[in-house]
């Protein structure tokens, strides 16, 4: 390393501090995130100061208000043209305020709101010692089955911390897709991951499974984020900066002021490629793409169902948002390197998810695998690398998230003595006992299967169309085949519900409070609206299809 370089380094360090000017933050444009995170902090304070009895109401109130406000803010920004004309990079290059981020933030906030309703549901579990309880542990710290737990239950404790945790997670998710430099990306990743790890561990029933899910999710998540971080490091090494724009320029070759000495000491394309790959891998883990999917079924099964629903929906949205931005803004120059690889990933994800799902016997695991298959479909759209690709993915995500939350909300309703009856055999003849619930669930399944007149079909069509336009015809064919395979197991469930005789000691269907009803109703509504009259939302996604650079 040359002396000059050393000298310059020292002098830079010796610059007087006064040169650093105060950062300029556009609070208005970051308001959605700020509102949510602020509310989360309020929630923490509530936990600290509000008496136990009224915490639940306070928390729910704050969260609902916050999320509504956040959504309003998103709408306002979009209306203000920040999604299209005024799209730009805010917070000194840390956050991009543009179409995709606003669309995704809107989706996430809404999904979060619906998820919140399922969190707040307290009618399903039979009242313990006269106080109504939700699906979260009375006292997470208490050992399952121990006296302390008994006491906690008797005292009617509930883990109201879930609400701030949820808000934190949402906050992180709001930043994730709009992060405009790798550091923000990483921090956001952790900010929404850590609360989720905790939430997974908080189930009221089947706590062992819940804790196991949390451990697996946490260890694997941390493992993956380590890769992400190393990837970031390498990219930083390659470009000398972590800002998307900067890296993109270096990749394009528009900027070449990387230290030439450095350039020839190591093949920095290797840095770029390896770093990119590891970074992408971290995101693929979050979206649950094969072969980084293996946490999904276990975690989905073990986590409290409301958490599963929220996680399945919102995490996918956020992660795909980030992936899109990464691939479209940072690495478009590498298109020809990553496209084939992503092809492969998409293909094995679609097929793997669909095939393994065939033999599942637990409804939550089934949905988990189905979500993997869907990740594959969405990847097909991501690969299109066209404006259509972006908007189709956005549309798909919007539709998919609500169907997912709705589906898991239905799962919370079907219960027997041991809590939720998630084993498929128990769903036999559900259609006879309570046709309405069965019908609703059937609608969700059909949407998953992509039957016309449901959001699933519109989304699938949009994605495949974009892919085919992008010349990925084989991908479309595989997608079609795997949706055929997938159809098989969705239909299996429907058969089970409607055509098989109800078991005498089968589960009962709990009558939920309006909260869950809203969640489910929302799911049905979105399914049908996006299925029958998707044009408005397609337009929305279409306008939102451009990233700011």
């Amino acid at each position, binding site marked *: *390393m040359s002396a000059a*370089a050393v000298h*310059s*380094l020292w002098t*830079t*360090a010796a610059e007087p501090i006064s040169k650093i000017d105060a950062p300029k933050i556009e609070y208005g444009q970051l308001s959605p995130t700020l509102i949510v995170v602020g509310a989360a902090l309020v929630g923490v304070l509530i936990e600290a100061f509000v008496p136990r009895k009224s915490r639940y109401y306070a928390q729910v109130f704050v969260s609902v208000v916050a999320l509504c406000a956040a959504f309003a803010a998103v709408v306002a920004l979009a209306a203000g043209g920040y999604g299209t004309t005024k799209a730009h990079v805010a917070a000194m290059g840390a956050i991009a305020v543009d179409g995709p981020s606003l669309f995704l933030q809107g989706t996430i906030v809404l999904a979060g709101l619906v998820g919140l309703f399922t969190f707040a549901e307290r009618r399903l579990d039979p009242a313990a010692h006269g106080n109504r309880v939700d699906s979260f542990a009375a006292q*997470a*710290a208490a*050992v*399952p089955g121990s006296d302390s737990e008994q006491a906690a239950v008797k005292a009617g404790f509930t883990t109201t911390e879930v609400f701030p945790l949820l808000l934190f997670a949402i906050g992180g998710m709001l930043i994730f897709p709009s992060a405009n430099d790798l*550091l923000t990306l*990483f*921090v956001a990743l*952790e900010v929404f991951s*850590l609360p989720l*790890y*905790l939430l997974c*561990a908080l189930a009221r029933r089947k*706590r*062992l*499974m819940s*804790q*196991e*899910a*949390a*451990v*697996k999710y*946490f*260890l694997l998540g*941390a*493992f993956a984020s*380590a*890769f992400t*971080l*190393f990837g*970031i*490091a*390498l990219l*930083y*090494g390659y470009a*000398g*900066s*972590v800002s998307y724009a900067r890296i993109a320029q270096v990749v394009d070759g528009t900027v070449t002021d*990387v*230290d030439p000495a*450095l350039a020839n*000491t*190591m093949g920095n394309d290797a840095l770029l490629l390896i770093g990119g790959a590891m970074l992408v891998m971290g995101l693929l883990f979050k979206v649950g793409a094969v072969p980084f999917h293996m946490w999904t*079924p*276990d975690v989905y*099964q*073990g986590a409290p169902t409301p958490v599963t629903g929220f996680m399945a929906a919102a995490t996918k949205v956020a992660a795909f948002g980030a992936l899109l931005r990464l691939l479209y803004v940072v690495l478009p120059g590498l298109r020809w390197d990553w496209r084939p690889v992503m092809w492969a990933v998409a293909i094995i994800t679609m097929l793997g998810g669909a095939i393994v799902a065939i033999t599942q016997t637990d409804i939550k695991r089934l949905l988990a695998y189905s979500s993997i298959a869907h990740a594959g479909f969405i990847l097909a759209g991501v690969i299109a690398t066209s404006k259509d690709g972006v908007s189709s993915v956005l549309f798909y995500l919007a539709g998919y998230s609500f169907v997912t939350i709705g589906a898991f909300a239905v799962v919370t309703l079907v219960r027997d003595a041991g809590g939720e009856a998630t084993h498929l055999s128990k769903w036999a003849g559900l259609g006879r006992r309570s046709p309405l619930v069965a019908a609703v669930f059937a609608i969700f399944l059909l949407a998953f299967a992509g039957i016309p007149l449901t959001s699933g079909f519109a989304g699938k069509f949009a994605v495949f169309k974009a892919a085919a336009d992008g010349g990925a015809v084989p991908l479309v064919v595989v997608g079609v085949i795997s949706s055929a395979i997938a159809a098989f197991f969705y239909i299996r469930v429907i058969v089970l519900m409607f055509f098989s005789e109800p078991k005498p000691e089968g589960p009962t269907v709990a009558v939920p409070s309006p909260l869950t009803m809203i969640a489910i109703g929302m799911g049905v509504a979105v399914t049908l609206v996006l299925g029958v009259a998707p044009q408005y939302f397609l337009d929305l996604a279409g306008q939102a299809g451009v990233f700011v650079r």
Partner: protein
Amino acid sequence: MNPVNYLYLAALLFTIGATGVLIRRNAIVVFMCIELMLNACNLAFVAFSRMHGNLDGQIIAFFTMVVAAAEVVVGLAIIVSLFRTRHSASVDDASLMKL
């Protein structure tokens, strides 16, 4: 000394950490290995920032430490509760859910 060597070291540490995650049973140890990987990243960041002659990397390193700390909090909470439930911190014991 050529800072590139630090990178090699970082890569090495990272690999060691990853390997540890793959082969060790005790959740705590696994977790430590992950921390090791994070530290490897930090080393890389610092090394790169020195090469590029800008401070981004070093700042990122601080961020990473904070994040890692937060991770420790959450992680230990989870692992400890698991341990108290099962009286074992082996990740292999936690395999109720499979197939």
